[in-house]
């Protein structure tokens, strides 16, 4: 059974799920739960560690799985329950809300990749979601784009996340964002920039919105423009000069496991994210 998680949440959860995760990682070399516990773990359903590696090469992972599974005897295990999920680290989409997916890509501006890994980064697609409140959803149905929605999208999704976790834009770094809908066509512009100008994005937005029976059935939006700089984990193999960044939004189909992932921007302070 394969599980993909953001350990930033799980190792902090003060609930049965967090306890189960910590039980596994404490048996591994990655046993300091006050720091990152990232890695690849193999465990029995009752939480006995069978294997661990923090090397993502296929050879290392295959070897870890092969070795770990030799020590695995399928047997009975209790089903984990989590009657009181820790609300500080298990966020829920507000009732009546909507999930949009956001995918990003650097279209041009890279130099020739210096390594195989840099080549992967240059071609990678950043992925995230954007959670929309009920009132914002209803406004879109009416053809309005609420400022809170525009700001959330700008701060957390009009961003280069193609090489890892970036720092979200701060309020003061949202220099301008404007979106309007007319006859089902959404157009807009955005300007995001740090105070010292070392990172920025100036983009044009265009997309199509469709409503049927009072529900949003299409939200296909693209943002494209010139970006520069890097932040957080996106420093590795970053473009040296200005680059063309695009971000696309669409309604999450709800059939993909990735649709359930919590928004990256909600990390740290969920109420602030949904504000």
């Amino acid at each position, binding site marked *: 059974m394969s599980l993909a998680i953001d350990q930033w949440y799980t190792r902090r959860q003060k609930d049965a799920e967090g306890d*189960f995760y910590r039980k596994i990682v404490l048996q591994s070399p990655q046993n300091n739960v006050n720091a990152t516990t990232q890695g690849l773990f193999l465990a029995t359903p009752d939480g006995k560690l069978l294997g661990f590696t923090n090397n993502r090469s296929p050879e290392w992972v295959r070897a870890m799985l092969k070795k770990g599974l030799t020590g695995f005897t399928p047997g009975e295990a209790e089903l984990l329950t989590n009657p009181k999920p820790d609300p500080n680290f298990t966020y829920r989409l507000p009732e009546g809300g909507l999930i949009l997916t956001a995918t990003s890509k650097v279209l041009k501006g890279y130099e020739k990749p210096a390594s195989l890994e840099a080549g992967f980064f240059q071609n990678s697609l950043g992925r995230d979601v954007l959670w929309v409140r009920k009132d914002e959803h209803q406004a879109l149905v009416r053809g309005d784009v609420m400022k809170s929605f525009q700001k959330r999208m700008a701060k957390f999704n009009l961003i280069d996340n193609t090489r890892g976790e970036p720092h979200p834009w701060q309020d003061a770094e949202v220099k301008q964002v404007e979106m309007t809908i007319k006859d089902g066509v959404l157009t807009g512009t955005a300007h995001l920039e740090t105070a010292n100008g070392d990172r920025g994005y100036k983009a044009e937005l265009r997309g199509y919105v469709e409503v049927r029976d009072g529900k949003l059935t299409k939200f296909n939006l693209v943002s494209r423009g010139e970006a520069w700089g890097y932040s957080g984990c996106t420093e590795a193999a970053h473009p040296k000069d200005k680059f063309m960044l695009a971000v696309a939004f669409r309604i999450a189909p709800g059939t993909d496991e990735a649709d359930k992932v919590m928004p990256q921007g909600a990390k740290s302070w969920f109420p602030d994210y949904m504000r």
Partner: protein
Amino acid sequence: MTALLLTLLLGMQDGLSDADCRKLHDSLKPPAAELWRNIPWKVSLLEAQNLAAKEKKALFIWSMDGNPLGCG
């Protein structure tokens, strides 16, 4: 005046046309056949543990800073 007109024309060419927008939007859709997405990942530890217990399978956890399916 000529420089201004040229700037305006170039600016228009750089803008997102209807065709550009649709083409770009399609190109940013995650490919349907990515090898790593063929693995039936779960994102809920609770759900994955319950399934592993019921099916008597081991639990493989890809634990990262940022969810591998949804960040970066």
